[in-house]
């Protein structure tokens, strides 16, 4: 680390959207224990009295905090500037101008996965045996995408609307998360806006009066980028761009944490390339899902970077990725020359146990012993020379992950079964217990529940998209349970009267009516699945529909409770299926604990 100054840029992922949030968040986490409910005490200050805050510049751009060492004789920088690039805030502005429909986003993704999966299967059947593992992962990804499609029923549909006072925080985060991903991955213009914004931020730092630049990173100031979550994807994109252009603004150190780079790179290869092979020749099929343009391998020598990636236990977004993903276009021998330590260095931490899965993605700074130590070292705020605190081994990390995911599967299954039992108890109060259990049987299998909800969501809303055209849709198989509803829908919409009738209805209806109509339509299968057992209560000669409506009319409060319990059941089963697929992906990928 150069003796002058270190400039640390924190790059936000999806999350809070106020300016300065990650800047102060990171600073506060180093100086106090954010999990403690006591007013911060000097004993919790990891920077001790070695560093003092000298300047708080809120104007920027970008805003920064300047810290100065009180012990200039000690090794390390004299000053540390901490900046932030708030990617999520900018993305929020973009999506405010053009909101997306999440149901169609998930269905479009599921459709694209269908197309890519079947293409991959064909390649494998044609003899590309090396694709076996990818075809297996693709099959799990398909089921995972179906979970998202199915989850839109309880999370975005009628149940959520009825419970909006209690669920709007969760729903808005859920929607926001996927909107932000779509903004950077699929919306080419927005991706350029964000990339330019990021580039400008770095450029502003490097050209600022407080930055002493030096050619070849030798004796000038040090640039460090610390990125979280989707911010790591934006940063990765920036790094590739800089390497490609022979740009001098490559950080000397890069710390990524909670990074989906492994997932994103695999998805890009899977959805947009033949046989999972990166092709930067410029040939396009026109049916690409991602908005990104593959760039060829750089020809000029690369600026070196030390890249550290940190993964928290049970963080569903964080991935460990092969070094080759640092630049898909480059051959690995050339790439490793540009990486300090000749690889991306992965570290494993654990901030919580079994139930930390919801918080693990945002809890990195809670780990003051290991993670904050890594941050302090990378940022030059602590000496990097002595041995780091003992870390978790990859084997322990993945062993715990596989075990906890199995336990989480059972926990969410039991939660779903509990809600289901409460539901049936309320609905079939007069039934003997044995009969009630018999009716519950078809409902107790998460894959079946999710497949049922997903099937109808796809059937109702699985239209061709701008990324998966009618022709592409025509080529997917009938005899495939995941693509069957799309084919069925396509067949139905080809009946001469159906499409014109729908077009007429849609053109004559106000937007709000269309929206409510869509929500109701999406809820119909769930509604009938909910009340199916009532068929056995129906008086002779009375059909299910009239029995259901008379039940609803007679028990309005009870119906509300039933909807809540059923929504809880479907959400728990969606979580169960999600966790099951997640575990399966880890097994297929072959994480160390599984070898």
């Amino acid at each position, binding site marked *: 680390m150069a*003796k002058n100054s270190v400039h640390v840029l924190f790059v936000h992922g999806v999350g809070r959207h106020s300016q300065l949030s990650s800047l102060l968040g990171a600073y506060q986490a180093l100086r106090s224990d954010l999990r403690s409910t006591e007013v911060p005490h*000097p004993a919790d200050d990891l920077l*001790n*009295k070695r560093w003092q805050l000298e300047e708080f510049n809120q104007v920027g751009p970008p805003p920064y905090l300047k810290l100065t060492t009180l*012990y200039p004789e*000690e090794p390390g920088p004299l000053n540390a500037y901490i900046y932030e690039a708030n990617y999520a805030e900018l993305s929020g502005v973009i999506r405010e101008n053009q909101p997306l429909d999440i149901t169609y986003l998930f269905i479009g993704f599921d459709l694209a996965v269908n197309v890519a999966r079947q293409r991959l299967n064909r390649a494998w059947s044609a003899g590309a045996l090396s694709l076996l593992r990818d075809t297996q992962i693709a099959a799990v990804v398909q089921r995972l995408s179906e979970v998202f499609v199915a989850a839109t029923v309880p999370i975005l549909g009628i149940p959520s609307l009825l419970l909006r006072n209690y669920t709007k925080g969760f729903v808005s985060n859920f929607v926001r998360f996927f909107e932000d991903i779509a903004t950077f991955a699929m919306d080419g213009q927005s991706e350029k806006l964000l990339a330019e914004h990021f580039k400008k931020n770095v450029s502003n730092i490097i050209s600022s009066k407080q930055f002493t630049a030096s050619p070849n990173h030798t004796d000038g100031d040090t640039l460090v980028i610390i990125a979280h979550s989707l911010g790591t994807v934006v940063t990765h994109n920036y790094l590739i761009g800089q390497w490609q252009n022979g740009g001098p603004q490559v950080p000397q150190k890069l710390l990524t944490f909670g990074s989906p780079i492994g997932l994103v790179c695999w998805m890009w290869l899977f959805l947009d390339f033949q046989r999972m092979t990166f092709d930067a020749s410029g040939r396009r099929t026109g049916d690409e899902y991602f908005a990104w343009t593959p760039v060829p391998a750089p020809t000029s020598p690369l600026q070196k970077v030390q890249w550290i990636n940190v993964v928290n236990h049970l963080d569903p977004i964080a991935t460990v990725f092969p070094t080759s993903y640092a630049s898909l276009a480059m051959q690995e021998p050339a790439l490793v020359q540009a990486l300090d330590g000749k690889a991306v260095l992965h570290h494993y931490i654990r901030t919580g146990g079994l139930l930390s899965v919801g918080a693990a993605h945002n809890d990195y700074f809670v780990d003051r012993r290991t993670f904050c130590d890594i941050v302090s070292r990378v940022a030059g705020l*602590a*000496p990097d*020379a002595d041995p780091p605190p003992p870390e978790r081994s990859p084997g322990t990390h993945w062993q715990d992950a596989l075990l906890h995911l199995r336990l989480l599967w059972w926990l969410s299954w039991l939660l779903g079964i509990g809600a289901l039992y409460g539901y049936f108890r309320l609905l079939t109060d007069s039934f003997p217990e044995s009969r009630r259990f018999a009716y519950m049987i078809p409902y107790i299998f998460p894959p079946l529940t999710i497949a049922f909800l997903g099937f109808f969501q796809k059937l109702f809303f699985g239209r061709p998209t701008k990324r998966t055209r009618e022709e592409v849709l025509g080529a997917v198989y009938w005899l495939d349970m995941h693509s069957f509803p799309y084919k069925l829908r396509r067949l139905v919409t080809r009946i001469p009267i159906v499409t014109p009738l729908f077009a007429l209805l849609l053109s004559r209806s106000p937007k709000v009516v269309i929206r409510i109509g869509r929500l109701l339509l999406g809820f119909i299968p769930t509604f009938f699945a909910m009340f199916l057992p009532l068929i056995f209560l129906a008086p002779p000669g009375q059909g299910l529909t009239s029995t259901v409506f008379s039940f609803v009319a007679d028990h309005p409060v009870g119906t509300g409770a039933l909807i809540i319990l059923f929504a809880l059941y479907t959400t728990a089963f969606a979580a169960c299926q999600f966790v099951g697929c997640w575990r399966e992906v880890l097994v297929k990928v072959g994480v160390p604990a599984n070898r």
Partner: protein
Amino acid sequence: MNLFQGKPKKHPDFEVTWDEEADDILRKSGNYTLEQIHNDFELDPLNRAVKVDPDLPYFVTPVLDRRYSVIWQLSEGAEKKIAKVSAVVPLRFAGVAEGLTLKQRVKTAVQRASNGRVALDF
């Protein structure tokens, strides 16, 4: 601090004394910090300790997850070894400082941390 933990353990072979100036430096960070550092150090003064200089009886021991360093002098008592703490500084003394020996670094750091009130006899 765990109230149910009982008295903190001390190393049986050491008798530790703290100079008033050393405690004064620590009190700036609060008595809670002072207690934690006392407990951590008195558990084992030689844990990861480094000699300041081969010819001097002074040691530097990192404490509290290596966030602080205790500078102390070792001498032999009648029954136990005596660890006389002179100062505590918020540094790790890791790596190599250009042109400075560890002895010089420690001396300078102690002077800074104590505002010149502690003068080490080396």
